[in-house]
């Protein structure tokens, strides 16, 4: 098992942790932050799977654009769930 396989495994575990954090969080701002962390790790995974163009798009959209859209939506509605 090469160290790249170990790195991919660790990144997938971090992604699952961030997803669980994002699902269980009652504060929706922090949930949006969790989705941003997921897309950072997903971009590194695309990078390791030899697809730098997909990783580039994922970095641009996931880190910057989706966070802005989520924050604007939270600003227009409620911040806390229930």
């Amino acid at each position, binding site marked *: 098992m090469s160290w790249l396989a170990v790195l991919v495994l660790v990144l997938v575990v971090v992604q699952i942790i961030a997803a669980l954090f994002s699902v269980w969080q009652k504060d929706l701002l*922090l949930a949006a932050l969790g989705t941003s962390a997921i897309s950072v790790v997903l971009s590194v995974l695309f990078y390791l799977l030899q697809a730098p163009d997909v990783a580039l798009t994922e970095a641009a959209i996931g880190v910057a654009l989706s966070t802005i859209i989520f924050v604007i939506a939270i600003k227009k509605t409620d911040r806390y769930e229930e």
Partner: protein
Amino acid sequence: MILYILIVLGLATFFVVHRGLKGPTPSDRIVALDNITTITTAGLVLLGLYFDRYIYIDVALIYGVLSFIGVLTLARYLEGGL
């Protein structure tokens, strides 16, 4: 050589992820996300050196240019503006 450097980077990322999961206030978690993206930029450049492909540096360039916009939006939301 790059393997040991990446292990040190992974240890640093572990501390930052711990702060992001624990952090008492939302600001702590946003600082943690900002640091995750910055450490990821360094890691992507080092992996580009390992794979020895020029196009892999572009992903790190996009990270360096765009990663602060999401954090800026979250900070403006905390301030009450936007």
